[in-house]
């Protein structure tokens, strides 16, 4: 019985791990090819006399992401959201609107919640990022806010949920969860198209009540 379970664990890759493996593999193999293609394109442009699009210098970003030191060599156009998803295989933060309007990409930067889609990754150099993947305890035990979202059925499709939870944790830490009205105001930057707002408000209030709104 015990043996069976461990065998099952061995061969089971969940969806996230599969995606991570695919992304990291793609980054390793495709990146040099992309560079070659760009070179070929600019050579072709130079030959026909069209001014080549300037190739921006890559920028090094060193940051601490979920407690781990990370060093990335990036095109300076890259958003923090794309750095997380496309370069680090962290798919928790979601790309909803990509313009800072929906909150699905919310992460913590130096302890403050931000829209990672409107944060140029180069501005994260030397700073600390916390994403939904870093929220649970080292033993995998859920953060009280994750637990509360389950308790209150605070989601339907789940797409906005990582952003909601990161915003909710910050909302309580800021001391903005003293009443339903406070929560509604402080959480207004996170849209939920399924309309799970009642459950979300209850979840945030539950956690604020557990620790008196102090953290």
């Amino acid at each position, binding site marked *: 019985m015990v043996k069976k379970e461990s065998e099952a664990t061995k061969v089971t890759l969940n969806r996230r791990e599969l995606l991570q493996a695919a992304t990291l593999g793609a980054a390793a193999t495709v990146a040099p090819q992309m560079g070659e293609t760009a070179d070929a394109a600019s050579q072709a442009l130079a030959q026909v006399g069209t001014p080549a*699009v300037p190739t921006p*210098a890559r920028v090094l970003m060193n940051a601490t992401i979920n407690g781990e030191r990370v060093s990335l060599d990036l095109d*300076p156009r890259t958003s923090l959201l794309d750095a997380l998803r496309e370069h680090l295989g962290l798919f928790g933060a979601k790309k909803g609107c990509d313009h800072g309007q929906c909150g699905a990409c919310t992460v913590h930067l130096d302890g403050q919640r931000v*829209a990672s889609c409107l944060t140029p990754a180069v501005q994260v150099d030397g700073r600390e990022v916390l994403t939904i993947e870093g929220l649970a305890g080292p033993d995998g035990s859920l953060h009280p806010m994750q637990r509360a979202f389950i308790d209150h059925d605070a989601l339907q499709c789940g797409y906005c949920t990582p952003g909601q939870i990161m915003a909710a944790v910050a909302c309580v830490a800021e001391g903005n969860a003293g009443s339903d009205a406070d929560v*509604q*105001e402080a959480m207004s*930057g996170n849209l939920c198209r399924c309309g799970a707002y009642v459950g979300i408000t209850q979840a945030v209030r539950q956690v604020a009540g557990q620790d008196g709104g102090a953290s």
Partner: protein
Amino acid sequence: MRPFTYVRAQSAPNAVQAVAAAGDGGKFLAGGTTLYDLMKLDVEAPTTIVDIRGLEGMTDITVDATTGLRVGAMASMTEVATHPDVDRAFPALAESLSLAASRQLRNMASVGGNLLQRTRCAYFRGNGDLSYPCNKREPGSGCSAIGGLNRGHAVLGGSDACIALYPGDWAVALAAFDASIETLSPRGTRTISIHDLHREPGDTPWVEHTLEPDELITTITVPSLSYGRASTYYKIRDRESYAFALASAAVAVDLDGDTVREARIALGGVATRPWRARDAERSLAGQPLIERTARQAGELAIAGASPGRHNRYKVELAIRTVADALRIAGERGNP
């Protein structure tokens, strides 16, 4: 997004030199919530970005009873909105920030950059379709909002070339308090009244303010005002939170009993720039603050409005917004 060269500034003097050296395509990057957003839409296409985030000495906030408020331009909207002394001395200033955007964006955006936030006009932003003419985005191409969908557009300060709304709140509140901004450029420092910072569109809607491209806002100052605490920023939106103003009013009133000694009124959400309403202010001096005088002030504040097809509602809304703001500020003055 177009490629650009990224430069991390080491100091404010270093930053203005770097933007000057970059020529026409150089831009300062502060919080990024406007510039980076518009770069994604290809509305902004700088060739050089000079990052001023994290520069030392640009985030200090001080409130002094005699000299007033000094705010470093790189302080975040959150830092100023939640500063207890700011809220005590000028509640309208704190509210103008806390009622803007979302907490996430307020944590990112700087109060200096916020002053120069660009319009939300859908024809300007394009939202992925830049085929509509827009004089602001492409000088001389025309204005799609005049005669187009203009529910959110300005009824004051527009021209035949542009009716795009100035979307901000903070600058409106600063206008009510006669704030100034201090700037740095390779040519030195200067101080500009908030009233001289933003321009009406006129024939050149793409020129939105009076700063030079290599001129950096370093500090925002607000002179002390004895009745600053009797103020409010009252903002009406399509939804209760996280939306731009349909109409807003920054109001402060100095009361002697029930009689107005002096009032300050500035409008947001209705004009092409922050809109100080001096005729409305004068109409209240020496008058009791009652429903009739408050409404009359609102009517004077929006006088001269020239609404289009879809934004006529803003006239009555602005009148009531001013009147309600006067009542709230008055209650704070005479608790």
